[in-house]
């Protein structure tokens, strides 16, 4: 009896999961495996190119301090962008989920996601117009403020952070919103009836209950930001060299795919390691 049930369940799991994962396998996992294979070659095996198996591409990471320095710089950038996005986005999601009701909430929710539907390059270039000297920000501030200010953020780390926070903020707003919306308002009322003030409610009830959403948002931000290259390159100028831009160079400018792939897999390994270390800590925080 239970065997039949187990079989049925297995069939169901298979039926629900296999389309998505089959798709991912064909279009992502197998290609990435091929890439992993390439990362151990001396050259991409196209045409008449000669190649041999080698671990040199991975060794390259350790041979100069350049890559490690840049990876560390990228990790710091990822952490900073993630923290800022969480601090900025969570209150937004809270207001959206708890303070605004009905139709206007849906409309606002859509408005948060809509900027995503524009081309990222166009968005980044628009930021450049805002942030550069004599740009929109400076003109705007000088129009409002009674005194003259010089604002030229272009080609600085703050410019990169602004651009990245802008690109990824909707993720954290969205996932936090979904989690917050699921919190029964009665729980908040119940806590108040027991004498809890707003801070206690936030700390003891709302944050723990919305933690899955916050974490999903944090992962969705941290992971791609560490490998980002477009925002740093365009908005960072001279200071915009990061691990992602070096990988991009290997693929776009130099076409040293084996080295680029090796660097990408090192990035992936480090990111997964960080998530693995962080997940039990965060899981404990939830209870």
């Amino acid at each position: 009896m239970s065997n039949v049930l187990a079989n049925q369940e297995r069939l169901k799991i298979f039926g629900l999961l296999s389309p998505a994962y089959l798709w991912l396998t064909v279009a992502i996992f197998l290609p990435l495996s091929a890439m992993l294979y390439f990362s151990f070659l001396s050259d991409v095996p196209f045409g008449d190119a000669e190649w041999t198996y080698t671990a040199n591409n991975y060794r390259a990471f350790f041979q100069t301090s350049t890559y490690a320095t840049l990876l560390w710089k990228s990790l710091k950038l990822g952490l900073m962008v993630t923290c800022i996005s969480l601090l900025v986005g969570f209150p937004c999601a809270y207001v959206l989920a708890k303070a605004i009701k009905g139709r206007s909430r849906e409309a606002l929710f859509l408005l948060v996601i809509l900027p995503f539907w524009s081309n990222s390059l166009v968005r980044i270039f628009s930021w450049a117009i805002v942030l550069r000297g004599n740009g929109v920000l400076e003109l705007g501030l000088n129009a409002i403020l009674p005194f003259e200010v010089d604002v030229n953020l272009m080609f600085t780390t703050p410019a990169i952070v602004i651009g990245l926070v802008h690109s990824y903020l909707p993720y954290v707003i969205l996932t936090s919103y979904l989690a917050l919306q699921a919190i029964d308002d009665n729980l908040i009322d119940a806590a108040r009836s027991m004498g809890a003030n707003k801070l206690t409610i936030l700390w003891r009830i709302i944050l723990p209950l919305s933690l899955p959403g916050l974490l999903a948002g944090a992962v969705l931000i941290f992971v791609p930001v560490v490998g980002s290259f477009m925002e740093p390159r365009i908005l960072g100028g001279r200071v915009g060299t990061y691990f992602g831009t070096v990988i991009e160079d290997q693929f776009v400018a130099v076409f040293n795919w084996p080295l680029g792939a090796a660097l990408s897999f090192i990035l992936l390994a480090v990111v997964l390691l960080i998530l693995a270390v962080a997940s039990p800590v965060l899981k404990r925080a939830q209870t």
Partner: protein
Amino acid sequence: MKKQFLMATTIAVFGTAAAADEIRVLNWQGYGTDLDWAVGAFAQASGHTVVHEYFNSEQEMLTKLRTNPGAYDVVLINAAFTPQAQEEGLIGPIDVTLIENLSDVPPDIAGNPDLNAGGALHGVPWTWGLTSFAVNTGEFDQTPDSIEVFWDKAHEGKVSIRDDALEAVQFAAIATGQDINNISDLDAVQAKLAELMPQIKTYWGSENDWNQFMAAGDLDVATFWSGSASRSMAAGLPVQFVVPKEGAIGWLDGLSIPTSSTKKEAAHQFIDWMIDPEFYVKWAADGAPASANAKAAAALPDEAFNKRILGDPEVVARVQFQRPVSEENRKKYLELWQGLKAAQ
């Protein structure tokens, strides 16, 4: 009208106005071959239509050729890469008898050793130009004549070079008085670039970047390509292209036909049209690199950028043309450049 007539006669001479083909051209975007009027005139005269695909680096172009056999009929290749493409068997020899305008290309260009890799012409010389620099005329009373302007503290934070390892290294080689194709003192290059870094506001990646930075007043002086400079000047930006006394990097672009092309005849016709003076003069009016065709270059009006600056034999004498770079050197240059960038 005259052009159509010309084209018609060209084709009549070949006597091969065969069935209409669709030829696929692989090139930088906005680099001559994809001009609407040019493609339209070609289609009207020959019956062949033209479809474009673009690349963003030479390496990408080579990869596209490798991974898409049969997809392209004409490809633009920088002479410094022609030997590699030829060695890999990606491009085939040109049938010179099918390209009538080739007779107007001076022998020293047509005989370029890189274009003639493997002992036969593999790239029809099309355009050439310089990688030097341009200055914002509003920031200079007198146009500088030395590359040392990049290291001038007066322009600190208002300088830009392209984010390209080879170009950066060759640029510094010129500044240190070395042969760009045979750099003997790489340490001097590195030191010179390290000294340059604090001067730099940002790197530029594309003509678009360059124009926007200049237009926004972010830059006083930046490396640039001659063809792009002529376009920017034509568009009204207050810039002046400079070929300094220390010299400049020269490059030559050729049009090649992939071995795997199935429409070679139409491809030859298209290349012939591309080096036609008729086409070139009209193109140069909106800003184009210099033509490899002497007759085309001569047909330019006297005030034209390409005639004024690149037509000057004294200038040409200072140019060092790029030769193929070995894989080993390429890696060395990249490491050097990345190390410098990462240190910022």
